[in-house]
């Protein structure tokens, strides 16, 4: 197979950039723990309200610097739908669904995750500034999908 000399340079450059890109992404993920949303815990979607932490959804202080926020998504809203968390502290969001697949997306942050029935989605985030953030569902869930929203107040 014949590769033109310029093509070798071009592909060499391409492959080099590829390796560079992937290393940056990989190091950032596995070295600095910048993973996209995950969560490997499962839950019975019909018993959400009886299963901790969703039996008492809302904000819970775990220690000085960490808070857990448990949220239940269902068509077409979140409970609780108005929460308050402190700025500058690590917030661990744990979200699950009682019915269909939704999303839990806090606009203008990196919190944007699918909420799949049977699974508990998890994302840790630290707010850098105070304010009222809009939470919405960006995975189609039915006729009222575009009304599905909540708010999160970030305070000092």
């Amino acid at each position: 197979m014949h590769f033109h000399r310029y093509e070798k340079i071009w592909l060499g450059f391409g492959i080099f950039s590829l390796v560079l890109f992937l290393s940056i992404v990989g190091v950032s993920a596995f070295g600095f723990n910048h993973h996209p949303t995950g969560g490997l815990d499962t839950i019975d979607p019909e018993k959400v309200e009886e299963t901790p932490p969703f039996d008492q959804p809302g904000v819970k202080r775990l220690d000085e610097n960490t808070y857990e926020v448990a949220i239940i998504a269902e068509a077409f809203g979140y409970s609780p739908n108005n929460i308050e968390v402190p700025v500058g502290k690590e917030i661990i969001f744990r979200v699950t669904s009682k019915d269909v697949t939704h999303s839990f997306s806090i606009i203008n942050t990196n919190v944007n995750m699918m909420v799949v029935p049977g699974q508990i989605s998890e994302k840790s985030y630290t707010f850098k500034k105070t304010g009222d953030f809009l939470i919405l569902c960006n995975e189609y869930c039915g006729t009222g999908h575009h009304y599905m929203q909540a708010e999160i107040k970030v305070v000092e």
Partner: protein
Amino acid sequence: MKAMICKQDRKLAIYHILIAYLAFLIGTFLGLLQVFIRNDGLELPKWLDYYQVLTAHGVLLALVFTTYFIFAFFITGMSKTLGDFGPKARLVLWLGFLVTTIGTVIATFMIIIGEASVLYTFYAPLQANGWYYVGLALFIVGTWLSGFALVGHYVSWKKSNRKQLSPLFAFMTISTIILWKIACLGVVATVLFQFIPWAFGWVDTINVELSRSLFWYFGHPLVYFWLLPAYMAWYLVIPKLVGVEVFSDSLARLAFILFILFSIPVGFHHQLVDPGISSFWKFLQTSLTFMVIIPSLMTAFSLFGTFERSGRRKGGRGLFGWFFKLPWKDVRFTSIFIAMFFFIPGGAGGIINASFQLNELIHNTLWVVGHFHITVGTPVTMTFMGITFWLIPYLTGRKLTKTIQKLAFIQIITWSIGMVLMSTAQHILGLLGAPRRTAYSAYNNHPTAMEWFNGLISNHITMAIGGTILFFSAMLLIFIVIYSLFLLPKADSLGDRVEFPIAMSDNKDTPKFLENWWLWIGISFALIAIAYTIPLMDLIQHAPPGSKGFKMW
């Protein structure tokens, strides 16, 4: 290679084109409704739901239009390069057409009667009428039949041309069909074993995350099923139009093989923000995803190589002189050139989307809608438009008149303008957080949401203006299609006839192993096994109690 293919094969191709453009007509009209609903310019009557419209838009354009057009192109090209289909292959092609069409009709009917507003991705546990899934399954089965007929035609050519490499068109067609068949295994598995038993009530629950994973195992190679036929035009039609031979036969074949290998074991990059899949497997598939950059760069190189070679041969000098020697006045060329041009930001956007953590920023926002309208919605679709301009007159034996060529220019230019407006607005709105797949909503006048309606370009109005221009362009295309089918003057002499432009490809130095399909299929399955076995086993073994079906509309 004959100038004209036989009548029965032409008829097959024309029927495929008819259905493709019927779907295009309805689908683009629904697109027009969507842009106006989203900016509150239009309210649907009670009996019609936004998500019903959106389901039909996705199914009719992304599945029906593309698939039928692709088969029309394959049938014509295979008949041209390998000779007329035998009676058996032709029969199976008609059978495939029939089954695909029955599937399309069933699925569309279910959408129309409001029993399947689940979008074209039909995520569980939203539950449509079981017949919707049956329709989709038949659609796939039909394409398999047609695919087998094409493979059969190829095999019989191989038998009578032992030890010869197949013509490049046939090679690429077979690669695409192989890719499609391996890809469909995922969606067939989830539809047959999960959705249908569940939707008809034979089982109560469904494993949701597993169904999502099987869907996306199919969903990503699906986009390559759209793209590869467009690439075929880029590799084979473009050189002919600019008057040179194929840049490199072996590299073209290698690129297609790499596309088969690296477009399937990568579905998790659509599930980067899903729970239930560990970061390790997401990252592994992200890395495999990025490998398609290699054949993409090879394609870009040979295209520019082709342009430059042609331009220089025509006397273009200096670093960029060749550029001005390209046949810009030929709409068959310019349409595809613009299509390629759109693929530069389109491909770059794809790299962003697949970049692991970065995906959180844009997942399910309007950015994604902007992205696929400048990948499948323009590079692929406009390449198909560029093919249509000559394919229909070629099949109907008519002359391509000056007037129609002018109209074709207006059509592609308006499509480009409309698409730049619509997709730029969508990209920016997406970065501002505006969600996709939503009817109009101001989110109780939340200040963040209000921004999406007040920006200069980042505005739902810009999107609607773009969408309107696009719709105008689509209707012009429909006019051109009808005119080319029925009204263009008949070509009397052979010289008047529109040709099927296909470049010579010198395969003297092409290594034989490139056409060793079992080798590539084997490697492909090995990669799939590495990328999928463990995470899928996990999803099955650690499955939570399943989900009942929900009808939320």
